């Protein structure tokens, strides 16, 4: 494959594109709501009308507003229809050429669309994720060519460093620094691993990216591999995501066939092969060292760091581990330059962040916003508040490792440091909205139960601490708690945070500590009279 061949594919794609197009969301959420049946119905209607040749019906990735799915967009008008049913097919076809159509339309001027800044999600809902040609037509794999032929590995790392990109998996470690460590660590072989073990309950960002734009991630990984000197990559993806796995498999085969992965990529000396490893249901495998154990075919138990995987990872070799969203940012940074990327966001948190906005919120879905946006803008403007007008009480970010931020702090800007300062974390991007009817002790107990079930059992504070914490919260909720219990709960939280072996155990108390901090009265109410006298 040479550059001109790539461009030829893009041109051919663009010239063959029909003027009239119907784009049906074929991501997991809308598929579950019957979007494939809608697509079939549209084909039937067009066939009957003898118009099948004039209109392209494209299955595309996530269009964002998952809670209102299935979503269908028509081009060139760009109108977006929500809650479409197969019976709407005729009207949608009519709408293509301006005919009458009573299918509910989304307001494209709604803040849900206008406040977003898609970088990672820029192709989502625009291209057919199962066709590499679609990706090439929007400029895909040209950055990889540029990198291989015109940049040295050091220049690539330098660009990523200057962009200010930080790990999107949650902890926010500077990506450039990680790449540089892997690049300079000695090793016979090196590996690049994409962490797609998105395990936070209430998060589906990575799933949507993989289902909607798998090549973007592959290209990002290939660039990383070139930069750090790796020839083998793995994508560790949750077994719960069959559609993402299927699309990744297809994407890898397609890329290999075109010589964009494999040996001598773009006729250069650079080789890079990617294999998929399917997770088997263990949240802890999102932790780097547990993930490595799992790829090596062992129980997914973490080990103490140092050494860090960047120095000694898979089979003891230097290993770069980044998550899906981090890799998905790479091409845009190289393409537009690190300065452009660094101009978005805040002083310490650059670029955008993808969030899965769920819970008691009108506009459930996938959003990408610039860092620094306030929680209020996300919840009230983009999310449109709660569906039934009950006031919002809190928003939970960071999943089981994060915390609950009360509505009174909704002016907090969304960046790594600010979220940490209010007792939560950025996390991988789950954002669950809770209304006034939500019992915060139950929420804390829900997360601790999750961590208890997901604890690997290796270290004592997490293995037994989660169970004792869960028992204490259960006792409290059942009205059998005593004033002493809150002291015990706090002591256990501190123990787990300070002494657990890995991030799972260290952060497991966060939901309890943050709710105890902001909603202590809800705990105290459960203990009964004795405390109420005091308060």
């Amino acid at each position, binding site marked *: 494959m040479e550059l001109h061949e790539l461009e030829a594919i893009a041109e051919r794609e663009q010239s063959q594109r029909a003027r009239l197009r119907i784009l049906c969301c074929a991501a997991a959420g809308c598929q579950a709501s019957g979007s494939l049946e809608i697509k079939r119905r549209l084909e039937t209607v067009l066939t009957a009308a003898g118009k099948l040749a004039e209109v392209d019906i494209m299955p595309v990735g996530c269009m964002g507003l998952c809670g209102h799915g299935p979503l269908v967009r028509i081009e060139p008008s760009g109108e977006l229809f929500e809650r479409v049913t197969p019976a709407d097919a005729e009207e949608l076809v009519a709408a293509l050429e301006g005919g009458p159509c009573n299918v509910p339309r989304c307001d494209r001027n709604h803040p849900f669309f206008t406040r977003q800044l898609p970088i990672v999600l820029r192709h989502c809902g625009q291209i057919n994720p199962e066709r590499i040609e679609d990706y090439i037509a929007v400029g895909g794999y040209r950055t990889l060519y540029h990198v291989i032929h015109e940049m040295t590995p050091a220049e690539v790392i330098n660009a990523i460093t200057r962009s200010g990109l930080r790990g999107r998996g949650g902890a926010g470690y500077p990506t450039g620094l990680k790449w540089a460590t892997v690049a300079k660590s000695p090793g016979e072989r090196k590996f690049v691993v994409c962490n797609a073990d998105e395990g936070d309950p209430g998060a589906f960002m990575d799933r949507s990216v993989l289902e909607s734009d798998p090549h973007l991630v592959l290209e990002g990984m290939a660039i990383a591999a070139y930069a750090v000197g790796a020839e083998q990559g793995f994508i560790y993806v949750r077994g719960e995501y069959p559609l993402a796995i299927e699309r990744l498999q297809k994407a890898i085969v397609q890329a290999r066939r075109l010589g964009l992965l494999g040996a001598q990529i773009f006729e250069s000396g650079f080789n890079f092969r990617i294999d998929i490893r399917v997770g088997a249901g263990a949240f802890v495998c999102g932790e780097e060292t547990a993930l490595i154990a799992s790829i090596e075919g062992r129980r997914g138990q973490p080990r103490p760091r140092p050494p860090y995987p960047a120095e000694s990872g898979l089979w003891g070799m230097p290993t770069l581990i980044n998550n899906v969203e981090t890799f998905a940012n790479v091409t845009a940074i190289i393409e537009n330059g690190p300065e452009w990327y660094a101009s978005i966001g805040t002083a310490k948190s650059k670029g955008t962040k993808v969030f899965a906005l769920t819970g008691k919120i009108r506009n459930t879905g996938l959003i990408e916003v610039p860092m620094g946006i306030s929680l209020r803008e996300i919840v009230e403007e983009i999310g449109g508040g709660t569906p039934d007008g009950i006031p919002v009480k809190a928003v939970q970010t960071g999943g089981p490792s994060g915390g609950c931020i009360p509505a009174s702090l909704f002016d907090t800007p969304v960046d790594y440091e600010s979220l940490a300062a209010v007792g939560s974390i950025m996390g991988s991007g789950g954002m669950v909205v809770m209304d006034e009817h939500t019992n915060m002790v139950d929420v804390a107990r829900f997360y601790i139960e999750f961590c208890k079930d997901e604890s690997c059992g290796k270290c004592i504070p997490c293995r037994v601490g*989660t169970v004792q914490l869960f028992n204490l919260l259960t006792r409290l909720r059942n009205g059998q708690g005593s004033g002493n219990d809150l002291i015990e709960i706090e002591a256990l939280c501190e123990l787990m945070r300070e002494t657990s072996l890995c991030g799972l155990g260290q952060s497991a108390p966060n939901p309890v500590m943050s709710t105890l901090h902001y909603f202590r009265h809800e705990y105290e109410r459960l203990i009964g009279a004795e405390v109420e006298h005091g308060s």
Partner: protein
Amino acid sequence: MAAKTLTIDGHLVSARPGAMLLETIREAGITIPTLCHLDGLSDVGACRLCLVEIEGQRRLQPACMTTVSEGMVVHTNTPRLRSYRRQIVELLFAERNHVCAVCVASGNCELQRLAALVGMDHVRYEYMSVAYPVDISHPRFGIDHNRCVLCTRCVRACDEIEGVHTWDVSGRGIDSRVITDMNQPWGTSTTCTSCGKCQLACPTGAIFPRGVTVGERPHASERIALIVEARKQRW
């Protein structure tokens, strides 16, 4: 290479480069609790009892898996470390049925000793009162899972020294359990060589020689290090 000089609890000590903090602390005559560590076996850093404070490091570090470095300033016995250690031992006692009064290892048990060492005079947590089986299908040894602390010393002794890997851990979290082969009665294991190293390595009365009663199981874990030494030296 020159020896490393570091400060442990206010005392200057020197250590050979590459030494682990745990051995250096012990050589300095300081007692620090451990459970999953056993001389002669690889370390896993799982029990968290040997965590120490190292100045300039945000997180506590397990002494058993931390390499000494020049100028390191280490605290092994601060109030919060003492409080954490006690809590960890409490959690262990609450997890399974550690009833010293009726245990073969009483008087020779590391867990019992740990309770005394960290001053754990009572357990604040609710006892979980589990009902695990006792496997005495093996002709020479038995295992009472109710007394297991999941330190995995048996697993490592079997794998690293005897080389047969009869033992492993099944399940996860609080449901973790050590197993032999396919989670089958130990006596039916096809890989076990009946060498007894697991029994030597066991810190509590979980794995015991058959025929002993309360307080009769001797503690002989230090023999594991001797065996390793013997193998190296080809005695």
